[in-house]
């Protein structure tokens, strides 16, 4: 069974540096970081101290209020350092990796019931892979999701090609789907243009959706809002394909092996491609970083600024390198033609060169202003919502209006393109996140 979803609105940002389909290296990190901040809604309580021995799959921290939810170590080794920030906030646990890896054995057994599936997710520390909608936080233990959604592809700028990274993990994907389908029906969206060539169409036991369109068509939130909009009080679970494969691998082998192909992308990357690595690997070991460059975990729209000394996040299968755009261009806004700057607006001439890829940097290209031009938001938001009204409701902290305008259906990443196109340079994603945080606080 398959359904079609054709989305027209949106934008593929023409950024240079898409990953070449080749494996550049396989990194065995000296140190990996387990970062509780990767998981929204997770309040950490430490289970280890410096000097402790851990195996790959040993618990490192637990949720303060729900002790069943664990985060586990991706490597075997010794706890080297507990990193804390302001007010002693726990930022990361650094684990020095052994030369040869030892794994906790969880037992290779396909779960037969929802309870068994949940048990495996909780024990292995993979519970955090499941993100709940609304709000995009870690799934709750008592959730009764009406469905589980998986988007097999990403349309984000320079995103990793899931067919390249996971194409040979079909058995793991299938095992993951089978286990999750004990909890709720699993919906899998596949990019229509590559349907027959991708491994994902061979996954069974799912409701298939064929999706086409520019970014954010690949965002699972956008797909959900068209396939099965979330009503007040309903919950939907989502899991990314990489985490699905990790979970399936665990079910098949009984080992927690988070090794993945990480896409190294971006105009400032010396060489693009894929590096085999673990979450928590120092970004310095993934690629060479030279000059005033920003290292982004994830894509340029909603990724995280990791810093040159940072560690790859749990959900990130991509890093993007961008030059910091601190130089100031004379008469920039007044020049008739700026060949190096991309704009969707026809006030510039980017429309003359539709195929051109741009060497973008992090310059804001203007100053922050009040909202003036707002139609651009609708043009990049392929959802049945009024972006500007939702944004204003979030700014005003008006719960009732946020509900009406669709706060349950969006995450900041779904409106990330609004950040990009806004001539007034407002931080739309931050505004939406503020609205979501308020909803969580008020609805709790």
């Amino acid at each position: 069974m398959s359904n079609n979803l054709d989305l027209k609105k949106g934008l593929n940002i023409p950024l240079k540096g898409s990953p070449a389909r080749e494996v550049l290296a396989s990194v065995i990190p000296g140190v990996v970081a387990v970062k509780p901040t990767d998981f929204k809604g997770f309040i950490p309580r430490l289970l280890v101290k410096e000097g402790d021995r851990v195996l790959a799959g040993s618990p490192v921290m637990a949720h303060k209020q729900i002790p069943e939810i664990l985060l586990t170590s991706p490597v075997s080794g010794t706890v080297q350092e507990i990193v804390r920030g302001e007010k002693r906030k726990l930022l990361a646990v650094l684990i020095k990796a052994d030369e040869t890896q030892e794994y906790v054995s969880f037992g290779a057994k396909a779960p037969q019931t929802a309870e068994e599936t949940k048990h495996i997710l909780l024990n292995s520390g993979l519970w955090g892979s499941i993100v709940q909608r609304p709000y995009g936080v870690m799934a709750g233990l008592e959730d009764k999701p009406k469905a589980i959604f998986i988007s097999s592809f990403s349309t984000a700028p320079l995103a990793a090609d899931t067919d390249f990274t996971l194409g040979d993990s079909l058995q793991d994907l299938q095992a993951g789907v089978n286990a999750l389908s004990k909890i709720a029906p699993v919906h899998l969206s596949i990019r229509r243009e590559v349907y027959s060539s991708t491994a994902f169409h061979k996954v069974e036991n799912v409701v298939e959706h064929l999706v086409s369109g520019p970014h954010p068509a690949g965002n699972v939130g956008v797909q959900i809002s068209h396939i099965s909009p979330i009503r007040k009080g309903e919950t939907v679970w989502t899991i990314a394909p990489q985490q699905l494969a990790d979970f399936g691998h665990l079910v098949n082998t009984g080992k927690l092996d988070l090794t993945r192909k990480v896409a190294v992308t971006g105009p400032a990357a010396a060489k693009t491609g894929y590096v085999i690595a673990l979450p928590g690997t120092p970004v310095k070991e993934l690629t060479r970083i030279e000059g005033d460059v920003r290292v982004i975990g994830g894509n340029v729209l909603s990724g995280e600024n990791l810093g040159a000394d940072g560690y790859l996040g749990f959900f990130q299968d991509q890093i993007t390198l961008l030059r910091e755009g601190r130089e100031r261009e004379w008469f920039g806004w007044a020049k008739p033609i700026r060949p190096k700057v991309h704009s969707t607006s026809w006030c510039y001439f980017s429309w003359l060169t539709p195929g051109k890829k741009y060497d973008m940097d992090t310059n804001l290209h203007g100053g922050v202003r009040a909202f003036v031009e707002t139609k651009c938001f609708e043009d990049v938001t392929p959802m049945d919502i009024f972006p500007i009204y939702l944004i204003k409701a979030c700014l005003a902290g008006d719960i009732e209006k946020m509900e009406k305008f669709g706060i349950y259906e969006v995450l900041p990443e779904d409106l990330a393109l609004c950040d990009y196109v806004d001539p007034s340079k407002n931080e739309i994603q931050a505004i939406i996140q503020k609205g979501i945080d308020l909803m969580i606080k008020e609805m709790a």
Partner: protein
Amino acid sequence: MDAFDTFLRVPGTVTAKGAHVRDGIDLKRVMIMVVIALVPAALFGMYNVGLQTSTLYGLDWNFWHMFWYGLIRMLPLFVVSYVVGLGIEFASAQIRGEEVNEGYLVTGFLIPLIVPVDVPLWMLALAVAFSVIFVKEVFGGTGMNIWNPALVARAFLFFSYPSSMSGSNVWVSKTWVSALKDVDAISAATPLAIAHESGIEALGAQYSFMDMFWGFIPGSTGETSVVAILIGALLLVWTGVASWKIMVSSIAGGLLVGWLGNIAGATELPFYYQLVIGGFLFGSVFMATDPVTAAQTETGKWIYGFLVGALAVVVRLWNPGYMEGMMLAILLMNTFAPLIDHCVVTSAVNRRAKKTLNA
């Protein structure tokens, strides 16, 4: 200083949160596009200022005489408009601790184009100050205002100093020429006034349709030439800076009411004349489309534009005191634009609610 600095060079600010890369577009670029779109109307208007004066006084001027006369007469208006307006903008930006907003680039260019050339400069300064302070800054600056500040400046002049702003004597520049030649009493009514007071025959005797189409008629500087305005409209629609929906629906509304007026016998003026006389087209293209004060929803834009056009012609046809309805129509619809949006959004929300309930 900061403001001048960012005027010359793009700020070196890098993205701090949210998307790490940003589109090249900013408000400065958007606003400068509107100013560029206004240039044909402004240049033609300057020529026409000279043309009207030389025709009225029977002067033997060539094209450059006319243009230079217009330019020299218009220049003080631009200077006053920008100096006063930007001065207040800078001061309030200082008070609020924000960057200077570029919205006034457009407003300051529009105001000289919609007032009589001979308007005393102190009046203009007063009108600009009133509109920038009370229509824009008290609401929070560009993006927050409810009414179009340029139009409010005009309305302020109109209601405060009607003798300098209306009637048959103000729309052709006489200030310097009348000193040379003592014919101060000569009046030069706008086609709108002629049609209104003396009827279509009197209008036809003085100006042909093509005169009005090209713009060789008395009127405020920017509004007379349909051709120059259409060039600007083309640029605005092409770049997507102004909404074509508002322009089209406003023209449709004006034509419809003009046509109804023909049928009802309210006017002999053929309905399509509504487009070429007075400030109708200029208002539809440059004033009604201001993204801040117009409706913001796409459906709302159709409704808003249509009502602007329709109301403007209603005022023209059925208001004996004051013929130029465009200014008041736009200001009135500025007032109602949030209401239109509210209705559009509410109906969409209800439709959504039904859908999510049945899902």
